[in-house]
């Protein structure tokens, strides 16, 4: 299904350069080394899953990529722009190309469901009229199966699964080139998890964007990702397709796959 009221957007013409390039990233909290020389690249239009045990720095990696945290050393380039060391205002332009789905959706609890989705449009689409913004928000919500009678509800009045959907379309409101998802199926029942996976696949296909998914749900990663990486002790233990992971003889990888 084609997106309704989609905003025409000029995408970068160069499809050969990776959209995300992480080089030799290091991050320590106190005495705990969380990231120990992480390097990876994500191509345009690709979905890349980052897996690992709890506490292996997956979410920290995602937060560094979007600039919420600074690494100790290393480089992160988004669409060939270095983001490490950038100020808040300098990051603003880069962040308009990125959508971020937080683990618990992080909906603004003083705004309705519709207002949450319209929030990025209110701030960055001054060329759109009020009714266009409202229609765009409503169309996005309908696209992910949110009924009209929920549009004026507050986030606390909807279920966790619905909050994730609203968070997802809020991240898509500005038609980003890169979507970052932090544990999109965490806390959801198997049916809701499957629905979120299908939604991500559908939206990714329709909006043609790259995505980095941080998850410990191997089934989810296998369903939606083109390539996967498993982090262990702050490093990338293995990177490749799911078949590459299955063929690996690394003991940690086999143990991870067996227990998932």
């Amino acid at each position, binding site marked *: 299904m084609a997106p309704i009221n989609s905003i025409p957007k000029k995408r970068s013409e160069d499809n050969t350069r990776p959209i995300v390039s992480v080089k030799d990233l290091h991050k320590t909290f106190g005495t705990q080394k969380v990231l120990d020389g992480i390097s990876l690249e994500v191509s345009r239009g690709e979905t890349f899953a980052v897996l690992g045990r709890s506490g292996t720095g997956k979410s920290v990696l995602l937060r560094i990529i*979007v600039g*919420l945290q600074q690494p100790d050393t290393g480089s992160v380039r988004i669409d060939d722009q270095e983001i490490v060391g950038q100020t*808040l*205002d300098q990051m*603003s332009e880069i962040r308009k190309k990125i959508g971020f789905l*937080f683990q618990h959706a*992080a909906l603004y609890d003083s705004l309705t469901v519709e207002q949450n989705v319209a929030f*990025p449009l209110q701030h960055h689409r001054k060329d759109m009229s009020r009714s266009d913004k409202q229609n765009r928000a409503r169309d996005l919500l309908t696209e992910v199966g949110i009924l009209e009678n929920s549009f004026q509800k507050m986030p606390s009045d909807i279920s966790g699964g619905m909050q994730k959907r609203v968070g997802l379309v809020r991240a898509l409101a500005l038609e980003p080139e890169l979507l970052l998802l932090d544990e999109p199926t965490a806390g959801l029942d198997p049916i809701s998890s499957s629905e979120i996976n299908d939604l991500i696949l559908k939206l990714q296909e329709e909006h043609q964007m790259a995505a980095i998914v941080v998850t410990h749900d191997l089934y989810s990663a296998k369903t939606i990702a083109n390539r996967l990486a498993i982090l262990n002790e702050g490093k990338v233990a293995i990177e490749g397709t799911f078949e590459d992971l299955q063929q690996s003889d690394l003991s940690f990888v086999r143990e991870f796959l067996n227990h998932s």
Partner: protein
Amino acid sequence: MTPSEAAGKDETIPSPPSRNFLEVIGTSAGSVSERINEFFEWFGNLAIFSWQVLRAAVTPPFEFREFYRQLDEVGSKSLPLIALAGGAIGVVLSLETRYSLVRFGAKSLLPSGVVYAIIHESGPIITGLVVSGRVGAGIGAELASMKVSEQIDAIETSAVNPYRLLAATRILACILMLPLLTLAGDFCGILMGWVAQTLADPISLANFINAGFKGTKFSDFLPPTLKTSVFGLIIGLIACFQGMRTTGGAEGVGRAATSAVVLSSLFVILADVVLVKLILLLFS
């Protein structure tokens, strides 16, 4: 039974190592120096935060919608409480002042005593402390809750400056609303002061006002009212700062709200000491 059992000693709990006097002094000095470090670190972080808010406040795009919303939150919604507090202070001042002045045969000075006390000091400081409690706690808790639930991070990843949207709007609203709330508090205080006075000794409102403002100068009224803008700056800045740096879940939210009220009230009182001296120096 072993001898120690017979003696009633519990062998499983080791007795604490004995510490000599120097060790105790050293440990205490260490924790005092830690506290001093934390004290200066707090001020340093507050200065950095203030600079970030100031930069955000003076650069576009400006968040007018959120600013208007905060004017309502800080101003209109505090009005009933300020009116009540101001009225209560007016009654108390009237009763206390009457008692003192009657003893010295100076009852006729009651209206000017009440009016002067309210507009010069009681009105501004009571307004500052009441707003510090209501607005300071509200802002501190709201922003702390947003911080722990990643809503502030979500604002930042939406390419919106949280210092501009959340902090600058609230601080500016506090700066603008405090003098207006002080006027409202002064009005209620003078009105209720008249009510208390007229119940004991009937006097018309017009006569009370005329007598009360007789001899009152411009410098008795405007500087004390405008000094509450500084109170607003203190309340808004400290509440936003404490809220936006919260960690630790629900406990952190509670701590942020409490510390916002306590610290802003304390600094309002300290600022009042300095401002009163400054006003007397410049206008007396």
